[in-house]
């Protein structure tokens, strides 16, 4: 696939997709989005990259092996669940830290739930990329 147009478009679209995916991930707790959707969008960014530039470039851009990303995501999600143990709660009990004033709505919420969603994101992201890359390379 030697499409100059597609490659040029991909340069922006892939970045946009990644950015957009993280946006969808972070807002997911309050609006449509979340780890699954974010991960799917993020992976399409790299899928597009692989289609336009080949998987070799895409892999080197990704730096980490997608399987490792996915597996690390699973680990992160699990650790998010295990965090509750530190506070004496059951597995997967959400732990929240609000930086700022919650009453006024001006605050940054940090939570194990978000960490979990990031794990979900990485899993979906890494898995789909691993699938598509392997498929691309094999065929």
């Amino acid at each position, binding site marked *: 696939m030697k499409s100059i147009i597609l490659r040029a478009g991909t340069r922006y679209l892939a970045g946009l997709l990644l950015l957009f995916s993280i946006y969808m991930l972070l807002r997911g707790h309050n609006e*449509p989005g979340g780890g699954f959707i974010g991960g799917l969008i993020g992976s399409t960014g790299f899928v597009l990259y692989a289609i336009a530039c080949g998987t070799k470039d895409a892999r080197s851009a990704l730096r980490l092996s997608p399987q490792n990303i996915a597996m690390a995501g699973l680990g992160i999600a699990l650790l998010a669940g295990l965090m509750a143990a530190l506070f004496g709660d059951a597995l997967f009990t959400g732990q929240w830290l609000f930086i700022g004033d919650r009453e006024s709505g001006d605050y940054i919420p940090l939570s194990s739930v978000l960490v979990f969603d990031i794990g979900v994101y990485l899993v979906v992201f890494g*898995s789909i990329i691993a699938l598509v890359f*392997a*498929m691309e390379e*094999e*065929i």
Partner: protein
Amino acid sequence: MEALMAISIGVLVAAAAYLMLCRHVLRFIFGLVLISNAANLTIFTAGRLTEGRPPLISYGADAPVANAANALPQALVLTAIVIGFGLFAFALILMFRAYTSLGTLDSDRMSLAEPREEKK
């Protein structure tokens, strides 16, 4: 509307089953996609359908609007879709490998795991 959904799910299932009964495994895969969609719609419909009221809590409110759509089946379906994709991808790649290592996609002609002459 639920009744109509029930009927269309039936049609989806029938089409899927017909595809899955084919000895061409690629068609089986297509059937799999259809039947997964049917299963997802079954859950979705079993949780009842609500038009125009997504289960979102608007800013400033503590709860969604009254009679908002049932969120639970949505969550179940959402994950079922992603899982379904994983299974589909695996199945597709399996078919691909089957074709390259067995030389056919005709399941009638696949006889390595269960050689048919052996029984004699």
